[in-house]
């Protein structure tokens, strides 16, 4: 350990000295850490050489204010998040135009297909869940007889059950930093019922949506830019952004579009080799199943290979399983990585595994609630304590989101008063999503130069578009990535917002976009015809 520290200190000094004698070094964009040390080192030198500058309090009066963009954390500047990037700003601008001057564009409304936000597009919440949440938010009405006329009997009963699990029935209090114990018991029971293997409530950390849980794991794992995290390409940009924010290196592995976005272990091996040759210590593997933006559902056999690979290479498996309820292909089934690894005979000691779940996806789509959890297994008690500590700095996740996470993992059962309405609502949403996915997929595949894998799961289609050279040149002239250019033309012509593939990563020279399957079903035909008409015109204009 001491040797390691000494070595590190030496390398810092060497780096800093190199920067000092090479004036170009520190401005190179990829050497942000060296420039940081350079900065630190020169400041340290300055206090010897120009003491007056550092010690008189008036000296800094003329310098620029502290929070200019030049002086922000370079990791913040570096990270990107395409789902809410440039294209969304354009969409918001167009929306304002439409409000101020109806008829100013060839469409009447903006259709946000950029983000998996179902309820913003008219999807209705599951009644039972909302009844319970409302009652927990305002428990003083539980005793009133009039309440029985407004709420279902089992929602009242469930609200009582949940309140009894909360110390003092106080839904307005901070909870345990991992989340309310009784709710974690319910979630663990739900996981057990799903997987057929035991789950421990102490392994559950409830979070404000799945994203903060991902951040927490990145913060724990990443020590410097020498630490790498394996991510699928294309990937959900939360991962690239979080890795950049925590100063690590994204190590890509490519999904194979030709085999329905297949994940090949041979590709993982190859990329691991390359990363190691570049001096990167790969720490963890992110798998998104069902895939975002790619929509594939992994086969169990494939998952076994992935588990085996992580175990052999000593990687933490970070399993993003937030779309576990969103399966549309009748021949596909979701298997959690925990179930797969347990069924292979690997227990807690054999493989560190984190599974992320969210209330934002599934059939419920409760994005605004910011509820979610991670199930953390195979971590030593000391490391677990560190996660607990980081969780406790934020005190706890929001209680409404915590309650909803427990409801999602234990919905009404056969025989409950609300079961029929619950299952009708759930099936209605999932069946409609499957139909929408199919309609959009077929429409995309009928377009010239466009091919689209089937959405087996999740909420997205990720078609490949073969853009004519003329269009690529036009994009270059507009200083845009070709797919970003296509997406902005599409938006300007139709009001449909999609995210360019370059925001997710793609094989160089290929172009894609991500489109959610979430607009309400009655709007799909109009989207299809607008999209088709636009694409035809676009190709007519640019065809080589």
């Amino acid at each position, binding site marked *: 350990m001491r040797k390691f520290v000494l070595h590190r200190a030496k390398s810092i000094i060497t780096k800093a000295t190199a920067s000092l004698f090479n004036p170009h070094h520190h401005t190179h964009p990829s050497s942000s850490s060296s420039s940081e040390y350079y900065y630190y080192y020169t400041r340290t030198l300055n206090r010897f050489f120009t003491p007056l500058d550092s*010690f008189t309090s008036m000296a800094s009066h003329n310098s620029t204010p502290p929070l200019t963009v030049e002086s922000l954390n370079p990791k913040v500047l570096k990270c990107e998040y395409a789902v809410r990037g440039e294209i969304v700003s354009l969409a918001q601008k167009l929306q304002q135009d439409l409000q101020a001057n109806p008829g100013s564009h060839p469409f009447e409304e903006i259709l946000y297909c950029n983000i998996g936000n179902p309820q913003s597009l008219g999807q209705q919440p599951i009644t039972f869940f909302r009844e319970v949440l409302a009652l927990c938010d305002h428990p003083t009405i539980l005793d009133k007889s009039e309440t029985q006329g407004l709420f279902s009997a089992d929602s009242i009963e469930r609200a009582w059950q949940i309140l009894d699990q909360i110390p003092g029935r106080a839904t307005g209090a901070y909870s345990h930093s991992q989340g309310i114990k009784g709710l974690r018991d319910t979630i663990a029971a739900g996981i057990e019922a799903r997987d057929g293997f035991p789950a421990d409530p102490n392994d559950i950390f409830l979070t404000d949506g799945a994203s903060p849980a991902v951040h927490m794991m990145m913060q724990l794992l990443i020590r410097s830019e020498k630490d790498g995290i394996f991510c699928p390409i294309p990937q959900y940009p939360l991962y690239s952004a979080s890795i950049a924010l925590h100063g690590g290196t994204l190590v890509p592995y490519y999904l194979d579009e030709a085999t329905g976005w297949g994940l090949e272990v041979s590709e993982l091996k190859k990329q691991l080799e390359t990363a190691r040759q570049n001096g990167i210590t790969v720490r963890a593997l992110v798998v998104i199943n069902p895939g975002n933006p790619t929509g594939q559902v992994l086969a169990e056999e494939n998952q076994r290979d992935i588990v085996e690979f992580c175990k052999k290479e000593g990687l933490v498996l970070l399993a993003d399983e937030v779309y576990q309820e969103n399966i549309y292909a009748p021949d596909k089934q979701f298997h959690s990585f925990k179930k797969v690894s347990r069924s292979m005979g690997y227990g807690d000691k054999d493989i560190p595994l984190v599974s992320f779940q969210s209330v934002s996806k599934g059939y419920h789509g*409760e*994005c605004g609630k910011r509820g979610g959890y991670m199930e953390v297994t195979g971590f030593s008690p000391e490391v677990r304590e560190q996660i607990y500590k980081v969780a406790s700095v934020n005190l706890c996740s929001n209680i409404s989101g915590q309650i909803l996470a427990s409801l999602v993992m234990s919905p009404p059962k056969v025989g409950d008063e609300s079961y029929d309405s619950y299952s009708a609502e759930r099936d209605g949403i999932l069946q409609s999503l499957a139909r929408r996915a199919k309609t959009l997929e077929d429409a995309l595949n009928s377009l010239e130069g466009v091919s689209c894998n089937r959405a087996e799961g999740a909420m997205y289609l990720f078609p490949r578009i073969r853009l004519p050279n003329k269009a690529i040149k036009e994009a270059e002239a507009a200083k845009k990535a070709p797919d970003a250019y296509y997406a902005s033309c599409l938006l300007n012509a139709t009001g449909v917002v999609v995210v360019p593939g370059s925001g997710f990563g793609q094989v160089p020279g290929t172009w894609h976009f991500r489109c959610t399957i979430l607009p309400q079903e009655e709007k799909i035909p109009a989207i299809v015809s607008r999209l088709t008409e636009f694409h035809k015109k676009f190709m007519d204009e640019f065809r080589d």
Partner: protein
Amino acid sequence: MSRKALDYDQINENVKKAQYAVRGELYLRASELQKEGKKIIFTNVGNPHALGQKPLTFPRQVVALCQAPFLLDDPNVGLVFPADAIAKAKLYLSYTAGGLGAYSDSRGLPGIRKEVAEFIGRRDGYPSDPELIYLTDGASKGVMQILQTVIRGNGDGILVPVPQYPLYSAAISLFGGALVPYYLEETANWGLDINNLRQSVADARFKGITVRAMVIINPGNPTGQCLSVENLQQILRFCHQENLVLLGDEVYQQNVYQDERPFISSRKVLFDMGPPISKELQLISFHTVSKGFLGECGQRGGYFEMTNIPPQTVDEIYKVASISLSPNVPGQIFMGVMVSPPKPGDISYDRFIRESKGILESLRKRAHMMTDGFNSCKNVVCNFTEGAMYSFPQIKLPPKAIEAAKSAGKVPDVFYCLKLLEATGISTVPGSGFGQKEGVFHLRTTILPAEEDMPAIMASFKKFNDAFMDQYEDHRGYSRM
């Protein structure tokens, strides 16, 4: 592979370095004792509802209706909910596309941000721009977002009051920056001495640290003091001269228990000072729904407001906010109700005022009961809790007690607090978790236990403390010093 990715020595050092005492050793021990069936009085966290404070009725009605919007169409809804809560719920639902179930704008719902801006405008007498207000999942998230944006590396320092709320030390460690302490003066009622500040900055610079920002907590946590206008002016001038961004933690602005120094925001003082400083000084102020009379900790609602921050920086902060998609929407609704409560003439007005006044008046009484109680104890001195939710008495530990702590392998105030917990069930936080001058010991309690329980709690504390002092006080011990 000999090393596993998650071996303890393989994880991020900054994570390991971070300390968060509010949920540390004492809290864990208290939870254990509770499981064993002992009655625990949790005064370690400013968590009013956990100690029996009832939520205000109106905000809960509004949020419940937003959760279950189908009730709004039910002809019987009026039997359970008052008309103004129904109208307010409809208003808030009209602010959203998709109700509580949709991600909002990453900065929060524009309609709520506008209400927050109006509240700030009314409070300060200067208009506020909703575009510069970001809603967050509680104030802690906001503080962390800003510190992450400011801190580039271990050469960047943040001035933090000591004693401080450990969120700051923990977040600074997590982001790999340097905490630059400035000591509050206990003998001057935890006042902030500008000369101490200058000294702290000079010391930090001597160590090669670039001081980037200064944190003030007003009213103070854990120290409870309310800053005067003059003191705030000095701080603002100091930050201006030294080129620091001022981070104003003002989450306790409604919790003031004396009348000489009412709360005044840093922003108001800044604008009252006029140009050039009012146009130049960079200020970020934080607020929450967890404190005040609302005390809705579990909802995780908060905001920060940026003053004189350049647009490009605001964009970067927006980008980081967008990676977490959006703050939780129910928490945003609570914030809306907090900043635009029922008005005179509304059906719920009287009840809202009765409930909120009741809470604040009772807290004021409890602040007195608690500080008086501490000051009646042997070897304990306590400044009056002028604001916030905490008392921070100094415990003058006899040398023998300090020795006993050492031989038990504990920091002296941790030792004292553990003994207190075991004897009385009162769960406090040792002063060492907040920082204190060398050789001086404190503890933090909240003033939140119910008013009717307070006399018994203080009696039980006194009984423990005085017996503890008798046990360890040894006059020969003092003569050796």
